[in-house]
């Protein structure tokens, strides 16, 4: 499903994060990307999702070249992808319900199907009572769960999760973890998960990629 060759990424201030990374994830495969904060996990996920251009290298998703190329736009209408962002990512002028439903409406699904999948996903993540509220009016945990609900409702072939457990309490974490375990066991979807919480995810049967800490950028005297 994912083939990356010779990937090189840098932080916005020019600090090299990844250098010459080769990566293959087969269809239905699962990959856990770990590493310390600032090691480039989120950046790698954004590059694989096609929302951030790498400094160098090639990325192909299901045989479709996204880098070099048009990034995520190359996948629109061809591969269903879901990306749960570590923060943000929800449209601030839409309710949580509309955020979850928008990709489904754009897919052209019938209204009844959109409503069924949206309600189901929000219910599963415990967001039914705040579904009509906008992202700024709910807690950080609810926003995190809304990101997951959007992915769940879309039933994607490729799922990218950026630190989905960060900042969640025990109850919310259990809900998210149950969902992730379901995706890991589902051979119809490919999962790439970035997290610092190796202990919590140690039970998952996934391939692992440990990113090395990024070198510190030295200021010239």
């Amino acid at each position, binding site marked *: 499903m994912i083939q990356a060759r010779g990937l090189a990424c840098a932080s916005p201030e020019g600090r090299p994060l990844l250098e010459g990374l080769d990566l293959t994830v087969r269809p239905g495969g699962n990959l856990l990307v770990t590493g310390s904060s600032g090691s480039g996990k989120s950046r790698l996920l*954004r590059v694989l999702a*096609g929302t951030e251009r790498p400094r160098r290298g090639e990325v192909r998703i299901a045989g479709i070249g996204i880098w070099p190329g048009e990034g*995520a*736009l190359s996948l629109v209408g061809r591969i269903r*992808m879901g990306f749960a*962002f570590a923060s943000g*990512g929800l449209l*601030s002028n839409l309710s949580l319900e509309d955020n979850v439903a928008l990709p489904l409406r*754009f897919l052209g699904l019938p209204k009844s199907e959109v409503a069924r999948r949206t309600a189901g996903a929000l219910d599963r993540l415990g967001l039914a009572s705040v579904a009509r509220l906008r992202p700024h009016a709910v807690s950080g945990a609810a926003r995190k769960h809304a990101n997951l609900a959007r992915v769940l409702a*879309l039933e994607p072939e490729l799922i990218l999760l950026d630190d989905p457990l960060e900042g969640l309490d025990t109850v919310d974490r259990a809900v998210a973890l149950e969902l992730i375990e379901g995706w890991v066991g589902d051979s119809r979807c490919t999962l790439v998960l970035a997290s610092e919480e190796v202990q919590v995810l140690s039970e998952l049967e996934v391939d692992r990629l440990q990113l090395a800490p990024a070198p510190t950028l030295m200021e010239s005297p």
Partner: protein
Amino acid sequence: MAFLARLGAPVRGFLAFLGDQAHLVLRTLRAGFALRLDQLAVVGGQTSLQTRFTGLDAWILVAGTALLLGAVTLIQAFSQLSGLGAENYIGTLMVLIILRELGPLLTAVLVIGRSSTAIAAELGAMQLNGEVDALAAHGVNPYQYLLLPRWLGVLVSVFALVVFFDAAALGGGFLVARLKYGITWGFFIASVRQALSNLDFAATLLKVFFFSGAITFHACHFGLRVQRSQTEIPQAVTKTVVSALVAVFALDGLIAALLYF
């Protein structure tokens, strides 16, 4: 050499800006043609929101400005041309000053002040919050969901507001003409009709089309370039206003030169 280098950088920057504008327009057009029937409801909803904000919510401002402008134009004309048969030139004055030039131009300026600033700020904030990336990552083409509805909404709104502006300005002009010379509505409109030509309609339509494109795509360009910090948003808004104003005045001059010179 140093002088040439100093000259080259802004020229290169300007050409890059033009290239980016062309890219945005072409991508948005392509996205528009690629729209499926089942996506029309979503895009239509966004377009109607933009139309309501840019067009409907601005009509009082536009009407008030136009009414005053139409009245002031004829007050000034009468004060300067009294004794020279100013009443015989009412139609020509209204068509030349208001319908041909100031109607589309001032409408565009008002829309830049109200809507292009809002579009740039909104897109900048969306960019910072990762919303544009999230759209693309979930199969929602940002050109279809963000740019196309804004372009269509601004196009429809600018057209409606120009018609509204012209009508209100004629109303203001008629009020002055009526009070000053007791001119009847029939005479006033006949005088305006006589001075109007098909070329004026064509020029207005061209201006509406190009002005709305310039307003939208300048706002989208600067809004979507926001990358890292909240402080970039006001900078994007300022750049949008300045750049869109320059573009609108340049287009206005170009169209006038092409059609009337």
